[in-house]
């Protein structure tokens, strides 16, 4: 079969099972767009800004486990995509980004819309390629998908000069069925000896706790994890990225840990004698002050990326391997030795935990005239039966979702944790809805974040995406204001969003439905009304108590046992 470069790219995507590409056309990719025009297998989603394309592909990936695919033009198309690429990179999300490039002969001559895409993206991709010969296209795509989706996943950029896709250059096309790279062989099976040592340590623990992260979700290992936790009867806490990796409504779950984690989760970390870290990377939002992190614990760490291990915190038993395979082995080892070595019941440890739980660290006042943000998320949880796919932007509202929406399944929660990218939410929700047309997809956002990619409301209309947008409107950059309240004596420097648009009119002008919630009495009713509109995008503008804060909170540099608690939580 003889094909031109544009056709080869389309064929490669088909071979990889790609159904959707998020993109925006321009000069350098016109040949590829022509190839897209001539086929029906791959559906192109036309976004309104290249940042939106990358976040949409990212939301698609986070809610399916499949890589998201992006197609943008050279120069400004590529630079606009960078924020989304960096966002995916920080959270280890598999993504393929095809960028057009100026024709090979003029590369380096400051040609029209030329930027060094490979150079600009190098620090925020898992890998990138510049294609130099149309005969290399197929193998490059095979490698790109292989690299993006195996080991620790991540975005891969393929930069394609325009001449490579010229319609008049046809070459034989054959997609490689297998790929082997001598320089890239991620380890998946954990070391058997280490796994046995770890299980022994776990069985001897008196105050164990699981600390699990995004790796569990990325590796689809929720069932192996659930089995292990329940069999051992250990408490478990999760990072922001790990939510859904273990059912949040189950009794072993302590809630999220870290800066805005629950009292019980952070106290359990502080008191633990054995910590089992699974697919989590000891981020500074988790550890706080590393000197005071888990002072009494021996640490077991399972991670597929050796550079995640002992990076921030020294561990005692490192296990390099995929979460799924290592947890499976642990379950197997347990099945063999448990009979002999029945773990002692952890009654005392659980009693401690119950005491911490009794402090009700997420309690908030329900007496005021304004809607509390927490109440809005609780209402959302009710109206969706806890079964929606929820995406968020960045700020207080993101933390309220993490604390109050109890995710029981993985891949139902998409947010930017590592980079903390405002503007992520709307396009990510779009991608999630396209990937999951039968699911209820919700965006929880803030009045500042939503304005960073608001143009995508237009994309939502074009493709009839019936998102429900819960806008927690406090008139502030709430998270910034909270820090200024706590650490800058309420000097609210530039964190007040003056001159807001009328959000209801704004969504209406994009062809959607808008509603406003002014008081607690209207909350549930309006939510129900909005969610009853199954085939429309509805934005619910919830006017919330403007100065409510996210509690608990650990100040940067403090230990897990030094939390700001909500004024409402009882002292025990």
């Amino acid at each position, binding site marked *: 079969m003889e094909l031109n470069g544009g056709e080869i790219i389309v064929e490669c995507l088909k071979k990889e099972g790609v159904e959707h590409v998020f993109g925006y056309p321009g000069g350098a990719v016109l040949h590829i767009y022509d190839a897209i025009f001539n086929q029906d297998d791959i559906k192109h989603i036309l976004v309104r800004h290249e940042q939106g394309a990358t976040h949409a592909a990212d939301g698609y990936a986070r809610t399916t486990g499949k890589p998201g695919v992006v197609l943008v033009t050279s120069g400004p198309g590529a630079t606009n995509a960078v924020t989304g690429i960096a966002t995916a990179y920080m959270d280890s999300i598999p993504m393929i980004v095809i960028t057009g490039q100026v024709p090979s002969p003029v590369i380096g001559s400051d040609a029209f819309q030329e930027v060094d895409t490979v150079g600009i993206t190098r*620090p925020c991709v898992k890998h990138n390629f510049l294609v130099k010969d149309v005969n290399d296209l197929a193998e490059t795509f095979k490698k790109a998908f292989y690299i993006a989706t195996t080991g620790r996943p991540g975005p891969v950029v393929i930069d394609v000069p325009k001449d490579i896709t010229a319609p008049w250059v046809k070459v034989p096309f054959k997609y490689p069925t297998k790929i082997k790279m001598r*320089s890239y062989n991620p380890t998946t099976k954990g070391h058997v000896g280490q796994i046995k040592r770890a299980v022994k340590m776990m069985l001897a623990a008196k105050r164990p706790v699981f600390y699990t992260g995004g790796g569990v979700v990325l590796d689809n290992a929720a069932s192996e994890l659930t089995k292990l936790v329940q069999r051992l009867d250990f408490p478990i806490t999760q990072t922001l990225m790990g939510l859904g990796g273990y059912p949040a409504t189950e009794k072993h779950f302590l809630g999220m840990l870290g800066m805005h984690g629950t009292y019980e989760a952070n106290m359990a970390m502080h008191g633990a004698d054995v910590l089992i870290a699974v697919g989590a990377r000891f981020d500074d939002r988790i550890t706080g002050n590393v000197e005071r992190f888990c002072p009494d614990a021996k640490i077991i760490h399972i991670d597929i990326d050796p*550079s995640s291990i002992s990076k921030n915190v020294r561990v005692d038993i490192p296990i390099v391997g995929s979460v799924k395979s290592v947890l499976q082995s642990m379950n197997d080892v347990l099945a063999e030795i448990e009979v002999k070595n029945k773990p002692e019941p952890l009654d005392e440890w659980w009693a401690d935990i119950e005491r911490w739980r009794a402090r009700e660290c997420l309690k908030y006042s329900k007496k005021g005239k304004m809607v509390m943000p927490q109440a809005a998320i609780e209402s959302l949880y009710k109206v969706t039966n806890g079964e929606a796919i929820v995406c968020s932007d960045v700020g207080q509202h993101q933390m309220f979702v993490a604390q109050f929406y109890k995710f029981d399944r993985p891949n139902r929660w998409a947010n930017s944790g590592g980079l903390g990218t405002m503007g992520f939410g709307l396009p990510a929700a779009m991608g999630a809805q396209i990937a999951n047309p039968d699911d209820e997809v919700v965006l929880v956002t803030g009045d500042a974040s939503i304005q960073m990619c608001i143009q995508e409301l237009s994309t939502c209309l074009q493709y009839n995406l019936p998102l429900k947008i819960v806008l927690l409107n406090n008139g502030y950059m709430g998270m910034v204001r909270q820090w200024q309240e706590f650490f800058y004596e309420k000097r609210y420097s530039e964190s007040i969003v003056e001159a807001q648009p009328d959000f209801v009119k704004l969504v209406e002008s994009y062809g959607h439905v808008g509603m406003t919630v002014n008081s607690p009495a209207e909350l549930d009713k309006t939510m129900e009304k909005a969610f009853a509109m199954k085939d429309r995008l509805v934005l619910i503008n919830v006017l919330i108590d403007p100065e409510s804060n996210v509690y608990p909170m650990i100040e940067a540099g403090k230990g897990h046992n030094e939390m700001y608690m909500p004024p409402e939580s009882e002292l025990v």
Partner: protein
Amino acid sequence: MRHIISILMENEAGALSRVAGLFSARGYNIESLTVSPTEDPTLSRMTLVTWGNEEIIEQITKQLNKLIEVVKLNDLSDGKHIEREMMMIKLKAVGDQREEVKRLVDIFRGKIIDVSESSYVVEMTGATSKLDAFVETVAKELIVEVVRTGPSAIARGVSGLRL
């Protein structure tokens, strides 16, 4: 502590900038870096000199290994190894200095590879410390320019860094 890391990597455009970029992005120290193709033209061999405490060196080797184009690497400082660096140094040489410089070059087992009426170019190979010593010994005002390759290194014994 100073570490010498040997890296075998795909001989591809851009591979070098990935290594250099990694060091600047993560704030690692880099003292010198040499690279050139091996007997197998698809592979390059890089010798990189860096320093840091044990944790930092562990992260450096892990991060290098993570680069897709890195095939293998070895921290030569872990075992016995030989280190050589080449230097070309241009020295002013007029009158009495000509004999004096020549004697010094002989003591350091250097070679004079270019002679003009008023200058020598000296070639010298050896451990970095030996080259340093020569540069320090020669009178400062005689030095016109110094060109050094940075060290390359190889492990002693039969085992080698290969596929």
